[in-house]
């Protein structure tokens, strides 16, 4: 492929590619092959489909497009058949023959492969009609389904690199910065720092070359929007970074990806190689004189490595530990060079701003937090997956309209937002608009963008304990408040959960939490107290129940619960008696059974196996 040497050449190429679309094959089958769908065997489905098409002698007339993540991973593998926007989900390789025979050849709809809306119980035929998608604004994520991430041609045909051409040919660096500032873009990594300010600082700082970093070290185990963007649309990130390079005057860049994301590493590497081959990376890009090149760096899986200074230490070959940030990394970052580090999503927003202008970007979101944000919705809701909504969308809308409400009939109690060091927002605050400032005020944070929905079956003390344990293990151990403070907080919460807690300890927990957030060295420590502080703030009654009444209201904390058999409900079937590993259950057949509390270890197996709901927990 010849290098694209000017914006005009790019336009010509795009026109050519667009003309080719649709002429080759009248029917397109879009098959998701993101990590989520691959896990639900979308690759065997694809192979089976190809074999079937071959057999039906349709190979030339049907195009199979393997794309990145669509976001609805729970229903995977997903398939969309165009024209018609027909949506099939949870396909197995065995369904391939039927799809080809009935849908492709016969034009019929295979009823059982359609999506069933769990709220209404209705079958939904078209992708656009699915409530989960319909309530979203999928500006960034929506591109994924339109292109094959391993083909730069697809991205260019979709209008890719148009924003870059515009920025290089028609805008000075200051104009690009001005556009980003006017758009009010804020850091999508969770901090919400104004991107333009960071760019300006790096631009003005002394030192050459200036460095750009794309932070794709998504450490939150429950969030995967960065992975999906990198896997599904790597060129959007490259384009964003190129525009940033033009604005900042940078000539080198890194994409720091976790090794745990092999597909993302593969796709972003392939994309960089293609962009280089096509002349979109390297020297004199599009004849503008801009030179910029990208390197992929793989992380080695430490939660703390996502912190900007720790990430730069890792890039330098040091242990990924944070450094004090009294001089901002925008001035002295990687190898003491001026460095702009932005999240994957932030970079992905940049082409959108240049393409549609600041007003186009501000069309969505609030005045202080414009644009959209992708969240990873998980937990006790009917629909889980990646959700892209305008910032400022009320939490209630995300949980009930998109998520479809509680999964198993129990009332939803709280949403844990922002990953392990985020906070728990209670149901009473669900009208809270989800934007950077409102979340911070509520004690939570945007953080990773993970949203874990919890219902009445979750004990908030247990939740705090779980996250504190994670953070204690992931703290780098460098500074005192984070290393010792988080460990002491965990000690206190464990005491509470095991019934040894005192009221004085609750006060100490609060005071210590505030000290840890104020005194810690890096972002991890500064937010590590959030899970404990927010649960203590919004669910104090649960803590008090543990401390004063020695009772766990949700029936989760083992040391505080008792399993009893309700004699009226027990039929004496003997299932629990046989299942009990401690032989703590006694009783004659067809007579109510009884649990010996001295032998019971509160494993809960009896409750799980009982078909008559006769085992009560309190």
């Amino acid at each position, binding site marked *: 492929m010849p290098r694209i040497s000017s914006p005009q050449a790019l336009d010509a190429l795009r026109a050519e590619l667009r003309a080719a679309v649709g002429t080759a094959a009248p029917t397109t089958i879009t098959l998701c092959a993101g990590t989520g769908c691959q896990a639900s065997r979308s690759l065997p489905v694809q192979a089976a489909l190809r074999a079937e098409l071959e057999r039906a002698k349709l190979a030339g007339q049907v195009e199979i497009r393997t794309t990145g993540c669509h976001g609805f991973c729970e229903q995977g593998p997903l398939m969309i058949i165009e024209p018609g926007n027909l949506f099939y989900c949870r396909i197995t390789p065995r369904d391939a023959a039927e799809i080809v025979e009935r849908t492709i050849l016969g034009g019929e709809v295979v009823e059982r492969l359609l999506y069933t809306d769990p709220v209404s119980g209705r079958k939904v035929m078209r992708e656009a009609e699915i409530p989960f998608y319909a309530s979203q604004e999928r500006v960034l994520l929506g591109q994924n389904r339109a292109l094959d991430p391993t083909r730069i041609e697809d991205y260019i045909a979709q209008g890719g690199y148009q924003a870059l051409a515009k920025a290089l040919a028609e805008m000075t660096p200051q104009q690009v910065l001005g556009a980003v500032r006017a758009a009010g873009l804020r850091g999508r990594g969770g901090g919400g720092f104004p991107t333009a300010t960071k760019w300006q600082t790096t631009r003005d700082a002394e030192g050459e070359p200036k460095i750009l970093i794309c932070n794709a070290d998504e450490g939150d185990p429950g969030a995967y929007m960065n992975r999906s963007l990198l896997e599904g649309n790597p060129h959007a990130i490259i384009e964003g970074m190129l525009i940033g390079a033009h604005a900042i005057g940078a000539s080198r860049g890194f994409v720091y990806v976790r090794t745990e994301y092999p597909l993302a590493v593969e796709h972003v590497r392939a994309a960089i190689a293609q962009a280089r081959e096509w002349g979109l990376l390297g020297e004199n890009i599009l004849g503008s004189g801009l030179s910029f090149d990208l390197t992929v760096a793989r992380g080695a899986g430490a939660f703390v490595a996502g912190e900007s200074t720790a990430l730069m230490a890792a890039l330098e070959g040091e242990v990924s530990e944070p450094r004090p940030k009294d001089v901002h990394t925008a001035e002295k970052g990687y190898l003491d060079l001026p460095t702009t580090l932005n999240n994957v999503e932030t970079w992905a927003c940049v082409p959108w701003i240049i393409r549609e202008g600041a007003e186009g970007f501000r069309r969505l979101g609030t005045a202080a937090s414009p644009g959209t944000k992708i969240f990873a919705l998980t937990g006790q809701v009917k629909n889980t997956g990646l959700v892209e909504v305008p910032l400022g969308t009320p939490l209630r809308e995300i949980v009930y309209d998109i998520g479809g409400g509680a999964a198993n009939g129990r009332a939803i109690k709280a949403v844990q937002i922002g990953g392990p060091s985020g906070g728990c927002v209670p149901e009473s605050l669900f009208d809270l608009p989800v934007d950077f400032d409102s979340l911070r005020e509520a004690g939570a944070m945007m953080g990773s963008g993970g949203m874990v929905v919890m219902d009445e079956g979750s004990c908030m003390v247990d939740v705090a304990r779980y996250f504190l344990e994670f953070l204690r293990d992931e703290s780098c151990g460098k500074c005192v408040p984070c290393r010792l403070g988080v460990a*002491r907080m965990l000690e206190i919460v464990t005491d509470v959960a095991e019934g040894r807690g005192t009221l004085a300890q609750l006060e100490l927990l609060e005071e210590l939490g505030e*000290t840890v957030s104020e005194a*810690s060295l890096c972002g991890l420590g500064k937010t590590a107290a959030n899970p404990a502080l927010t649960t203590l703030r919004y669910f104090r009654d649960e803590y008090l129940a543990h401390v004063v009444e020695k009772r766990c209201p949700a029936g989760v904390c083992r040391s505080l619960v008792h399993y009893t058999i309700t004699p009226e409900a027990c039929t004496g079937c003997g299932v629990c008696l046989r299942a009990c590993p401690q032989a703590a259950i006694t009783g004659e057949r067809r007579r109510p059974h009884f649990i010996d509390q001295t032998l019971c270890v509160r494993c809960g197996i009896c409750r799980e196996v009982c078909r008559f709901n006769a085992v009560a927990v309190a």
Partner: protein
Amino acid sequence: MIRYITFTVDGATIRTPQGTSVLDAALDQGICIPALCHMRGVEDIGVCRLCLVEVVRNGRSRVTTSCTLEATQGMEVLAHSPKILNLRRNVAELLVAEAPNSRAIQDIAARCGVTSVRYPFHHADCVLCGRCVRICSEMWRAKALGFVGRGAQRRVALPFDERPAYCKRCYSCIDVCPMTIAPCAGPMPLGEEYLCAKCASQLTMTARMPDSCVWCELGKGFGCARQTSAARTRERTAAR
């Protein structure tokens, strides 16, 4: 030519060469800001978090460590605000609860106003201040000591836990270690740790005054002993 800048600590105006950290400048003037990991001559890493100060800019204050903060012209620093004293006390309490068996740590706890410890005592031998690691790698360029592990597993270790040939047994690491001197009443047996706080009695009158320190031999080692800038300058000139 040395350029000087002027800034304030707790309202007191300080003139110091450009490029000095707030902590060094304050200590030079006898303003005692407690510190553990700080040592003259090696790079500051800001890990003990005892030297926290508030920096006020445009009416908004930011908490940071004074050892890693370079003093700049007109900077307004609060080293003994109620908020800072509270944070420092809580951090010192964490330290002394973790490793009570050290006179230096007990002294720091007293200096920071810890009067009771609300956590069960641990019996750690090391507080990971990194003084030994940094003196070995920066002062002597030996790098015979380093940190190993993450979080709770973090510890100071020799390379692969074996003494390398390039360790010349200079024992600088032991010289600077805060854990090598037992509390005044002798080492505390496991399970019988307590907060010593005897020297706290000396604090009451002078705690809030600049240029004061708990009388303690170790105070000198930690750079918060009574010392005027004139004396320091003399020392430095002599060293050159």
